[in-house]
């Protein structure tokens, strides 16, 4: 379930995020938002919740999908304890980092 929620969230939200922050702002296609505007946005509790959900669900989507890609793609199912720890552990760790960072915005 986390996998499909993550898939929907990543599909809907990531493209515009990457387009803007990854290409449009660095390349100057549009004026990048000022530091103050971004900070004000990110301070808002709704933004924090939005970012947390985006990051967490996307990470669990990756974890689940990558686990099976490693199993089926690289045929290394015998390493499943290692793979599971890496994937789901990584997603949990990332979620914790996201929560910490979002909590600590001044």
């Amino acid at each position, binding site marked *: 379930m986390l996998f499909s929620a993550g898939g929907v969230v990543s599909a*809907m939200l990531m493209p515009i995020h990457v387009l803007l922050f990854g290409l449009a702002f660095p390349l100057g296609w549009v004026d990048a938002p000022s530091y103050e505007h971004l900070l004000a946005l990110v301070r808002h509790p709704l933004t924090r919740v939005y970012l947390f959900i985006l990051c967490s669900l996307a990470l669990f989507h990756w974890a689940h999908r*990558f686990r099976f890609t490693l199993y089926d793609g690289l045929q290394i199912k015998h390493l499943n304890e290692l793979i599971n720890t890496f994937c789901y552990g990584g997603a949990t760790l990332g979620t914790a980092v996201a929560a910490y*960072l979002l909590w600590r915005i001044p």
Partner: protein
Amino acid sequence: MNNPTEYLPRSYHTRVSTYWWLARWASVKFILREASSVFVAWIVVVTLLQIRALTRGPADYAELQNSLRSPLLLTLNAVSLAFVIFHAVTWFNLAPKAMVIRLRGKRLSSLAIAAPNYVAWVVISAAIAWILLRG
């Protein structure tokens, strides 16, 4: 012979090569689709780095923006964008297969289920762009 079943193989598993998927374009596409999840995770990392930089102050944020302009990161993010869009398109196109909705006895066409996803995608993207750009 004490126990003949000791010497019989239990079941036969063919050894599958690690590169089995390269044999057909269809399986290459499949692996590429699944690999898009790696780029999704990368974007989460970039987003978290941005949040951290915002928290630390304008100098840190400016520094991160500069590194985002480096050719390496620009290329990586451009590739990520391609993969993230690929993920979205393949995901929305799968929705009709996952959701079978019947209206008055007839199954809704694939387009009727996939299209609203695309519309929502455009609307949501526009909303996010507006929120970010109006400052």
